[in-house]
């Protein structure tokens, strides 16, 4: 679906992505993971043309992403960021239907799709007319998800969608997301810094460090055949202390 060829990007001399090549398969869930500042969010935003590489190319279905096709690529993708990125001046309903209204969908079609999505994301319909400021973090994240899915996109991109939620809600939403991804059968690219979440949600994990790709594969591969010492340290650091806490 997505293909990055020798892509580099830096901000004011600060390297975000360095000579990175990666292929993201269609119909599967790919998780980008790595420590803060490793370039995983920048990479995700490159897929939508929100950030353009200094060198190298990003292609979508074989076509190089450029100013001419970026608009159509964005319409084929849904994008969710931390805390939803919801517009505070619009209600949940207006946020979700913004693009459909802009594209002049017939009201019946919009309403039907909205009902479908509310059921899919377990968002109760009586809260649709509240503003983001009147909803909790978890609810806002569901609204963000609905907004991303409104146009029934082929691709769903999520940038730390659960990052700002408290652990119990986070756990619950992780389960829901997994079920959702299985149901949708779409290409999903998700950014997280939590290895457990990555392993739970992803078919493939892409581990990044300082703008470079370190290892790509399953968690098991990273445990059994780490590409380098950093992979081992990263995995160890992310493993719960619960085991050792329980043993003592």
């Amino acid at each position, binding site marked *: 679906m997505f293909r990055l060829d020798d892509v580099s990007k830096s901000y004011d001399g600060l390297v975000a992505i360095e000579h990175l090549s990666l292929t993201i398969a269609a119909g599967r869930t790919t998780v980008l993971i790595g420590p803060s500042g490793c370039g995983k969010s920048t990479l995700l*935003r490159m897929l*939508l043309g*929100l950030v353009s590489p200094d060198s190298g190319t990003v292609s979508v279905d074989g076509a190089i992403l450029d100013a001419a096709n970026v*608009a159509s690529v*964005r*319409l084929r*993708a849904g*994008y969710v*960021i931390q805390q939803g*990125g*919801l*517009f*505070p*001046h*619009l*209600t949940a309903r207006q946020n979700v239907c*913004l*693009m459909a209204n*802009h594209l002049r969908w017939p009201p019946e079609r919009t309403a039907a799709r909205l009902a479908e999505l509310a059921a899919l994301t*377990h968002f*109760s319909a009586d809260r649709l007319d509240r*503003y*983001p*400021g*009147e*909803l*909790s973090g*978890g*609810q806002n994240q*569901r609204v963000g998800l609905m*907004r991303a899915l409104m146009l029934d996109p082929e691709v769903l*991109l999520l940038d730390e969608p659960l990052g700002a939620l408290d652990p119990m*809600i986070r756990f*619950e939403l992780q389960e829901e997301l997994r079920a959702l991804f299985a149901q949708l059968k779409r290409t999903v690219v998700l950014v997280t810094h939590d290895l457990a979440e990555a392993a739970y949600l992803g078919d493939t994990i892409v581990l990044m460090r300082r703008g470079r790709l370190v290892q790509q594969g399953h968690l098991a591969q990273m445990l059994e055949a780490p590409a380098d010492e950093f992979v081992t340290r990263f995995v160890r650091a992310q493993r719960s202390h619960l085991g050792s806490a329980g043993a003592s």
Partner: protein
Amino acid sequence: MMRTAWLLLSMLAALAACERRDTAVIIGSKSFTESVILGEVLRGLAQDAGLPARHQQALGGTRLLFNALANGEIDAYVEYTGTLGSEIFAQQRPQSQRDLEDLLAARGIVLAGPVGFQNNYALGMRAIDANRLGIGRISDLARHPDLRLRFGNEFMDRADGWPGLQAAYGLPQRDVRGVEHDLAYRSLAAGDADLTDLYTTDAEIDYYGLRALEDDRGFFPRYEAVLLYRADLAQRNPGAVAALRRIVGVVDESEMARLNAAVKIDGRSESAVAATFLAETMGLRTTLRTEGRIERLFRHTREHLLLVTLSLSVAIVVALPLGILAARQPRAGQYLLGLVGVGQTIPALALLVFMVPLVGIGAGPALVALFIYSLLPIVRNTHAGLTGIPPALLESADALGLPRGARLRRVELPLAAPTILAGIKTAAVINVGGATLGALVGAGGYGQPILTGIRLDDTALILEGAVPAALLAVGAQWLFERAEGYLLPAGLRAKRIQDPAHPL
């Protein structure tokens, strides 16, 4: 949006120009009582000849009146020969009335003849002080360097005023300040000042017990009141010239002082005093346009609101796109913000006077000045509102696939609305206050009673302008705060409410 802006701008221009389209004879007067009375006499004379006539009362100082006459904004007014020679034609130095007539003719202006009195400059102080200090002549002042001198603003600046006088007599006083001339009289009466400039026909000389000092070196020129009118008036309206010329030779010095006193001391209106004079000396019956206090208040409110709303509307239509442009193009934006900032720093008075040669007198210059003053708060707040939107929200809008125009309309402008509205509110409140200055160039509004009130020392009249102006400013503030309730998207007003029963 730009088309609406042009439409409104051309409306402004048309409004400024339309005052001159009709065929009425337009009389002007300077902003002091004698000039206004004579203006009313001229209006009465034109009216008696069956001509539609209007009087642009108390327009301003000599330059403004003379330019208005030269540009055809007004058709006639009464000027003083000394002022013409030393102020308007200072470089040409006319030596005789003949020279003066030639210079005026070259500007398309006819000097019709003397009205019949001289109103010379003099210096005056309280008679008791003059006796106590032994001052009878201007040269005596050299021995009293500590005197507090308060002159009318025009006298402070004119070549034939204080600068020339100080040089001619070698006067040593240092505490010299320019004030509104009528205020100078009052501070003299109150003992806050020792000396001021007088006009020899001023009613206040007797009233305040002042003494005019002898000009022993013959510094002050003779100020003979003369009628000036535009040469083309004879073709446009031959009857008007004959009618206006009837003022020549009919008002002598004591008559003028009496008329001044009737307004300034007895508190009658200039129109009434002029009408009585015309009836008594020429047997003319002029219709006196009397206006009650309420009616006058309504007129001033109407004029004031027109100035404020029109200038503000045009400013909004122009400033919003400018603010958007400034936010979109950061480099150009800095220049743009600087430019409208400079517009704000031009003193209101200077701006008004600048505008007179360009758009004439009346509402035009006031509208343009208020428009310029309204730009900064709106442009700056639009820019601030748009650049202050969190980048994550803009990225969300882009990621959704919203094109730039739709992003601006559906996301950016609503989010910036509170800031933009605050800018418009600031502009409106500034405008309500600023519009009072419009009266200086004949735009009317609440400034009119304030100016007239200062001139006539009539506190009630000052309040008649000041109180509604203050109320209007407070009202505008209140109105905009109410409007915020309706105009702002509800989500921006709502407080964050957590629902503990349903955390998800």
